[in-house]
């Protein structure tokens, strides 16, 4: 009897797990990205290894009429890295460091290398990346193709620190691209979402590694912009900055944390520049973040702890390279049927307050599960054809937890469109690596260069060999629902 009960219990548990994990986002035979949305069957995934192999692959695909998508770490979330029945070139194994020129302060590396790889290679020379995301697992190719930005407030968006790169184009040729050679491709392929060819290797300008004092202030959100404009921007010693907005009930969109990294030349670099892992408290961090995902008191706990830990850490000493490798494993989330989704909105500084207020209201009204909001600064930088930094901007990066069900996503889509209407009303822009929920009209309003961008795409790649859902949705007039179904 006992045995039967135990056996039945185990069988029931297995059936339960089977049902729980049978949503499409869990299908190992389909390809998707960080979002786990719109999984499709691709022809095959090919690991990039050799230059000649990639040239052959492009020529082959062209002959057979197959589409090619390019993937780095696939942390983009709108189907930028795959296409139904196409070939996915996985660049993560194409990741060698080619050269570090410490005199010229430059690094040349293959595009599948990550920031972590780059940091490991340059740290010993006392060098550091100028601009990158807050986290370091992304590939260089994936990062320059979306023109990333992060905590650095002095070096613009990533495109400014790209010196040159080599591009394998749709006709199977390899072109050197810089601001002087094949210059027309420079602002297209950078922030080009993999539509102009495979970026093989990249030369980046570097800066010096430095020692910073970290300090965090708790303030009213309404004081934040003023503080940033008066205390942070004019102070050249502050090199990195990040803000945070509370999503906890009792301080919702009223409290903010501002964290500065101020250079202290009196501190010797060699004492602080050993590369440290930031992943020391993953299990408790993950548990806390899961509570933040599932309950209101979890959000409160998270905010209170963050406030306590960060403000207490004030005066913590850290090297630039270590400050540019924030922890991220605590965010890992593999629950079936639900996932975290990022959104990022840029607004000019003088419109920030009003936009943040509206954003907070929409999130409340639409009952979205907002997990955190960080604030970054990017200086005006219009070099990339699809540039988001039309002005000096503050970016609000919002992480939502959403159900992956059709209904859940329909709701999310409506909310995203509402938020982007506000972005437009506030002369802002939104970030393109995320889910393709903005309408075509919203995209075209915010990125008025779109016509030129897609025309050039078809000029350099007339058969639309390089293909992904970003292009399918916004460049070809078709929407993802049609294409993915």
């Amino acid at each position, binding site marked *: 009897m006992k045995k039967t009960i*135990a*056996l039945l219990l*185990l069988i029931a548990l297995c059936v339960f797990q089977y049902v729980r994990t049978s949503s499409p986002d869990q299908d190992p035979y389909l390809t998707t990205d960080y979002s786990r949305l719109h999984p499709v069957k691709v022809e095959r995934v090919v690991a990039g290894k050799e230059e000649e192999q990639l040239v052959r692959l492009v020529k082959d695909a062209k002959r057979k009429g197959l589409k090619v998508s390019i993937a780095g770490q696939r942390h983009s979330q709108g189907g930028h890295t795959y296409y139904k029945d196409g070939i996915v070139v996985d660049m993560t194994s194409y990741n060698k460091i080619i050269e570090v020129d410490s005199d010229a302060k430059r690094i040349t590396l293959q595009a599948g290398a990550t920031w972590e790889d780059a940091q490991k290679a340059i740290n010993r020379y006392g060098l550091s990346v100028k601009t990158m995301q807050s986290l370091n697992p992304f590939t260089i190719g994936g990062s320059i193709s979306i023109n990333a930005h992060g905590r650095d407030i002095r070096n613009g968006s990533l495109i400014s620190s790209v010196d040159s790169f080599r591009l394998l184009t749709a006709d199977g040729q390899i072109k050197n691209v810089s601001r002087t050679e094949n210059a027309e491709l420079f602002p297209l392929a950078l922030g080009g979402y993999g539509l102009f060819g495979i970026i093989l290797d990249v030369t980046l300008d570097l800066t010096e590694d430095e020692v910073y004092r970290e300090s965090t202030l708790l303030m009213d959100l309404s004081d934040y912009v003023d503080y940033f404009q008066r205390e942070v921007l004019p102070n050249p010693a502050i090199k990195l900055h990040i803000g945070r907005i509370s999503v906890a009930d009792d301080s919702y969109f009223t409290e903010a944390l501002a964290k500065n990294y101020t250079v202290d030349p009196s501190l010797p670099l060699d004492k602080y520049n050993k590369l440290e892992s930031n992943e020391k408290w993953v*299990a408790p961090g*993950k548990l806390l973040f899961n509570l933040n995902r599932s309950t209101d008191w979890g959000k409160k706990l998270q905010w209170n702890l963050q406030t306590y830990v960060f403000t207490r850490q004030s005066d913590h000493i850290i090297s630039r390279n270590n400050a540019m490798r924030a922890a991220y494993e605590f965010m890992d989330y593999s*629950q079936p049927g639900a996932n975290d989704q990022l959104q990022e909105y840029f607004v000019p500084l003088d419109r920030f307050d009003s936009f943040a207020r509206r954003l907070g209201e929409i999130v409340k009204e639409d009952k979205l599960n907002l997990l955190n909001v960080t604030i970054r600064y990017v200086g005006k930088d219009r070099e990339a054809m699809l540039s988001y930094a039309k002005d000096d901007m503050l970016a609000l990066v919002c992480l939502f937890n959403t159900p992956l069900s059709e209904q859940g996503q329909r709701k999310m889509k409506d909310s995203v469109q509402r938020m982007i209407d506000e972005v437009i009303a506030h002369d802002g822009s939104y970030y393109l690596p995320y889910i393709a929920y903005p309408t075509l009209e919203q995209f075209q309003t915010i990125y008025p260069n779109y016509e030129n961008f897609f025309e050039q795409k078809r000029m350099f790649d007339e058969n639309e060999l390089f293909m992904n859902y970003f292009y399918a949705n916004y460049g070809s007039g078709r929407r993802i629902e049609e294409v993915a179904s």
Partner: protein
Amino acid sequence: MNVKWLIRSQSVATLAAGMIYPYYLLFLKNLGNSYSKYGLAFAVFTISSAAVSTWLGPRLDKHGTRIMVISSLGMMAAMFAFPWTSSYTLVLLLQLIMGTCNAMQRMSERLLLADSTEFVSRGITIGSYHFWTSIASGFAVILGGLLIDWLTINALFYMSALLYGVSAWVVWRASRASLSRKAEDTITF
């Protein structure tokens, strides 16, 4: 030792093992750049397991329960150590220890099973033993997956270490109980 307690303790040990085993394989695969390197780690495990068995054999009859307790404690230590390993050599060393523990556990388990069963009724006990340890292993893998989703693989290693600790304690307690019973029996005689 009472066979009931043998089954209980070994179900806990299987829970500990089953919980970590499939995920441990993933963990190991991520360490090596090639499948050959991965294969080597397992060969080391079997070599130590085989080598130790020849030494253990003659001592088994006398120290069966003690060996079983040590094997669980050894596994506990290995599970605690795994998240802290920082080189492939250390992984090989742990594989070596785990191979040794494996031999100790397998051999003492068989001995104790044989000791506590008799001809004719053996099949039923062995069946029961197999049933409960397999069921434990089934629950373990499902629990393990959930735990990694919510926490980390390291947390799973620690959880498994704790369970090994519990199984060692159960065996130790049960063997003490049966020893004192034996002592009482002697007095009554």
